[in-house]
């Protein structure tokens, strides 16, 4: 009988929609086994009627059973889906990251650094033309004619992203807010002194930074200075005939000197300062990926930008109440991880 049950279940499970063939096959095998078990001596019509009744009841049962199985299957599917969804959300919360840079900001940064890298690679060999590496790079890129063109492409890109940024700072709500937060304040000077004190061991704790620390503000405004110097002098060099005709060769000489010197200063500042802060710093090594996905780990967020973190927490409390913390739902499958996040994550601590 167990075999029959299985075949019934299977047929109900898999063949519920085209039952005709399956039913015929089933009825044949059932009638065969019944005939074996039935007492001998029943007349032909009796036998026929009995078979008919039995078949009818079995068919009914089969349909009911197949429906039940389908329902069970769908329920299980749903449960699994819910489970993975929950796991994903838990993982997200375990990663504990929040968006720090919007897509717009990230794209601006990517275009900026792509152009800057092109400009540095094609520009530095001109400043250090005596170095063997300079000639190597120039010829690797296809000769001075090509690098000149590449440098100009980079220059146009840099100019456009610079102009767009100015527009972004004025026209976008996000731009205006962030620009406001980037303006240097007296607090930055205090924070700077506090930080130095902390480095030297005079203070026990780090200064509390807002969305942008004085380090990031320095980076931001250094780019302003660099862009103004490089773009102005760069276009004088590019359109040197017009510039000299207008202002005399001395204008060209000034532009040349400034372009060359500021180019080196910017390169060194990026390599030493910016790369230290986002790549080589022991805590960030081999590099933060915030520039790519825009997210910052919650822990880092809380530590490095505590004031902004507080602000973010307030908005989060208003926004949502998380339903899947343990205790609120009796599913133990993700217990370990959830428990950890509850302990480690400040958010979990607050909601439970």
């Amino acid at each position, binding site marked *: 009988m167990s075999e029959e049950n299985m075949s019934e279940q299977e047929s109900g499970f898999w063949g519920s929609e085209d039952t005709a063939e399956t039913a015929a096959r089933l009825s044949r095998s059932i009638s065969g086994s019944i005939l074996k078990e039935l007492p001998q001596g029943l007349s032909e019509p009796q036998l026929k009627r009995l078979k008919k009744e039995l078949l009818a009841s079995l068919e009914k049962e089969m349909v009911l059973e197949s429906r039940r199985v389908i329902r069970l299957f769908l329920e299980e599917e749903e449960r699994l889906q819910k489970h993975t969804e929950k796991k994903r959300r838990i993982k997200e919360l375990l990663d504990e990251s929040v968006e720090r840079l919007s897509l717009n900001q990230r794209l601006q940064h990517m275009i900026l650094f792509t152009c800057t890298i092109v400009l540095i690679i094609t520009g530095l060999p001109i400043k250090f033309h005596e170095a063997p590496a300079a*000639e190597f790079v120039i010829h690797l890129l296809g000769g001075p004619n090509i690098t000149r063109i590449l440098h100009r492409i980079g220059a146009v890109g840099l100019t456009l992203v610079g102009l767009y940024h100015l527009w972004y700072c004025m026209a976008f709500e996000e731009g205006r807010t962030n620009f406001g937060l980037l303006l240097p304040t007296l607090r930055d000077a205090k924070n700077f002194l506090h930080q130095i004190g902390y480095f030297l061991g005079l203070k026990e704790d780090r200064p509390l930074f807002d969305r942008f620390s004085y380090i990031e503000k320095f980076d931001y405004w250094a780019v302003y200075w660099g862009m103004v110097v490089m773009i102005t002098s760069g276009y004088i060099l590019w359109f040197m005939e017009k510039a000299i005709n207008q202002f005399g060769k001395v204008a060209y*000489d000034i532009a040349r000197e400034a372009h060359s010197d500021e180019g080196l200063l910017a390169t060194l500042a990026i390599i030493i300062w910016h790369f230290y802060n986002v790549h080589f710093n022991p805590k960030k090594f081999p590099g933060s990926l915030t520039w790519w996905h825009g997210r910052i780990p919650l822990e880092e967020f809380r530590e490095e930008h505590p004031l902004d973190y507080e602000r973010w927490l307030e908005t989060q409390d208003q926004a949502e109440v998380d339903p899947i913390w343990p205790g609120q739902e009796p599913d133990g499958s993700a217990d370990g991880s959830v428990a*950890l996040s509850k302990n480690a994550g400040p958010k979990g601590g607050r909601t439970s």
Partner: protein
Amino acid sequence: MTRSRAHSVAWKAGLALWGVIGFLSSVPARAQDDIRCLTCHGKPGFEKILPSGKRLELFVDPMRLRLSIHKERKCVDCHADVTEVPHPSIPEKVNCGRCHFLGNEVGAPQLERYAEYKNSAHGKALAEGNPKAPVCQDCHGDHFILPGSDSRSQVSHRNIPQTCGECHLEIYAQYQESVHGQALAKGVKDAPVCTDCHGEHNILKPQDKTSTVNPGTIVNTCSRCHAKVVIMEKYGVKAEQVATYRESFHGIANEFGMLKAANCASCHTAHQIFPEQDPRSSVNSRNIPYTCGKCHPGANANFAKGRIHLNPKDKSAGIVYWIALGFKILTLSTLIGLLIHILLDLYRRVKNRKQAPRHDEAEVVEKSQ
């Protein structure tokens, strides 16, 4: 006394006899042929009127011949095809290559130059059959050949421009007027003559990449003198002009093989080089718009406002010097500040790690669970 006097006379007589014997035995043997030749060719005014009406001078000054470097040679050593007198046909032009080739055994100097000539612009022209192409004699002379170190030589430093000017007349005139030509005329030994820039036997066309006056090599050629402080300071010319050129965009582009960029001669010209103050100079402020305009169309008088050979490290550069200095200070102070900040940050991190290793470990354990 008398005895000693007699002895002295006998000694002198013996010496004279030895001398005469020596003369008779050696010199005439060499001179015999020459004497035969000089019977006609030693007469001043010996000449022939060619069918074309051109006068061909056939006189050979025996005195000059005797002073030349070939004084040991017989006429027929060079004029090898002359076997009969009078000559049945006009003798061929002398081929110096009979002796002057690398590996010769007759005592001519063993020099690479003979081969260099063949590859030179002159040698190639000759090979192509150009009748005007100069051969050895055209520069070195025929019967009065002297080493270049001899001031009477046609190829001495002093005489080179004139020798080249035999054919390159226009350029010779330009050169004579130029600062280099004027200096040479005054007897300045450092003054460059044609061969100092163009080479001697290996003269190549400027279009040839290996030529010393090719755009790719001219800077090195000029800097052989103009980069040398010892030479330049004698004449009040700045030796740093070469360095400032090399630092300029022109110089850097030239260095990287972009030969359309200006080189020394693009602005200063090749042969009509004058001091900046000279109104004939291509780099005189009046001529700057024209000179710069050759490559920078539309250049106006403002191109002369400001130095061309500018050294930003020198105070004479004016505002550019101060800007360079300002950036130097800015760069150094910024980077020192940033580095100190970085080092302090690292210092504190290391200190934190040392002070509280337990905290770190606890964190790691917690995370691994």
